């Protein structure tokens, strides 16, 4: 079956499709409530490619392949999706073995540096007098430490986010760089794989583990990305466009997952 690509899609739908291709069948996958696009991407993977994924949804585990339509949920404490539960997870159980909650994770950030280290603590030089106090690390530090791999995801791409150095590091990416950047610190797992933004997808150059442009979204130029990135990004000679979603993916997103159209706004 050749892929039939869609031509009419939003950047959010494009990103959801990209994320869908990161999920592997049989894995445990945490589905956040707040980040609509990664949520849609993971559910898309589940419905189309990964029927055996164990979805961690509002502190329950479930499987949704028989659900014709996903009703939306906006908070991690919404009890309504728990109607699908196959198991309840006491929240403190996650600390007993974070891998039992998820094999992959999506991490947001206030700041990200060139090695994929990220910050949710706050912005400012003096911790006692922050210019901007962040929300806190939530579970990102522990999850990103224990999972097989994670994905940095931000909803805007500018020089306030992509900085030469984070004011504080709440989640380790590749530390001070190098293929052994994590191993040196005794940190397991494969670390951040991609950094996903509204402009592009970035990966990490294998030797230096510095962030590298992998693909730009339709309509975005390489210069635009470089200009909006506060550190020196590795830019290969040719940078492709991000692979578009298929017609089937877009149909599934719109008819079964994003029925309320949040990804089309």
């Amino acid at each position, binding site marked *: 079956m050749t892929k039939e690509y869609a031509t009419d899609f939003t950047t959010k739908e494009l990103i959801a499709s990209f994320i869908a291709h990161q999920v592997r069948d049989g894995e445990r996958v945490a589905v956040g*409530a*707040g980040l609509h696009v990664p949520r849609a991407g993971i559910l898309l993977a589940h419905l189309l490619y990964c029927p055996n994924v164990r979805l961690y949804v509002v*502190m*329950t585990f479930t499987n949704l392949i028989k659900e014709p339509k996903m009703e939306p949920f*906006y*908070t*991690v*404490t*919404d*009890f*309504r999706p*728990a109607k699908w539960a196959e198991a*309840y*997870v*006491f*929240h*403190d159980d*996650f*600390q007993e073995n*974070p891998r039992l909650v998820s094999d992959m994770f999506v991490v947001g950030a206030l700041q990200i540096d060139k090695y994929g280290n990220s*910050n949710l*603590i*706050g912005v400012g030089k003096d*911790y*006692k*007098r*922050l*210019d*901007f*106090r*962040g*929300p*806190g*690390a*939530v*579970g*990102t*530090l*522990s999850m*990103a*430490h*224990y999972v097989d791999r994670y994905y940095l995801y931000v909803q805007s791409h500018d020089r306030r986010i992509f900085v030469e150095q984070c004011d*504080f*590091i*709440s*989640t*380790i990416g590749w*530390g001070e760089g190098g293929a052994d950047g994590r191993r040196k*610190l*005794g*940190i397991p797992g494969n670390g951040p794989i991609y950094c996903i933004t509204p402009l592009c997808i970035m990966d990490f150059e294998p030797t230096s583990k510095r962030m590298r442009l992998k693909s730009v979204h339709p309509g975005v130029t390489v210069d635009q990305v470089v200009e909006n990135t506060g550190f020196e990004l590795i830019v290969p000679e040719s940078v492709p466009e991000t692979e578009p979603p298929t017609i089937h993916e877009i149909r599934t997103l719109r008819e079964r997952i994003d029925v309320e159209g949040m990804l089309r706004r």
Partner: protein
Amino acid sequence: MIPERKSLIIDERQAAAMIRDGMTIAIGGFINSSHPMAIVRQIIRRGVKDLTVVGPASGGLDLDLLIGAGCVKKLVTAYMGGEHYCPIAPLFRVAAERGEIDVWECDEGMFYCALRAAAQGLPFTPWKAGIGTSFPQVNPDLKVFTDPINGEPLLAVPAIKPEIALIYAAHADPYGNVQHIGTGFGDRAMWRAAGKTIVQVEKIIPNEEVRKNPLATSIYGADAIVRAPYGSHPFAAPGYYIEDEEHIREYVAAANAYAKKGDRRPFEAYLHKYIMEPETHADYLEVIGIKRLISLHEY
């Protein structure tokens, strides 16, 4: 003559009277759900000061309200916000930026390490995630040490022992057997760590009902039970009601007026109308109105 068991039921005023200035208390639930708000509001009414509040692993606007009302000296939690209502809790943000409160910076994993150490009577429990980050720098209570087995660097997360845990749950019998609907989030971990646990419930159920499903008993042995229907309002209560979106938005607007524009009047008006003026939880519910309350039953 068969001896009788003693009822542990008290009211929210008796519960809040146990909370004194300077105490370390835990407050259960998670972000927008399952907070013992009848007790929290009574604590504010009484003007308790200098609390160290061990919030849930991820804290919500109940804690923001306590901060705004001036009850909090130090906060232990890994997140402060209201998700899509407001990504960062407004009064927490400004209080932290100005150094008006201390934040015990942690992530959810470390949070449970601290509670577990207290429950186990240990000075600390170790954690690996955090090595290489800013946490040991911004939270000097976290000590990097060399593990005695493999010589790896690890983080020692010290015990934090709440003197009293305030928990919200669906049901309890009069003897302290508590049953949550849903997972109960990290409430068990707070109970295990705390010196005493007071559980505010939607409904008292007979002991015979508890025995029908012993697996559902999440806390076997609360020290006191407070009955407060709609007691998590404006936050959600699994199996009973969803959060009151309109009320939460009203709170966020009032808090943001202060946090973003320096105008404290809307927040003071909120405090006055919903907390200081009503004398009891029942009075608070009258202010909210039964019409609003029953509209939240829709699932």
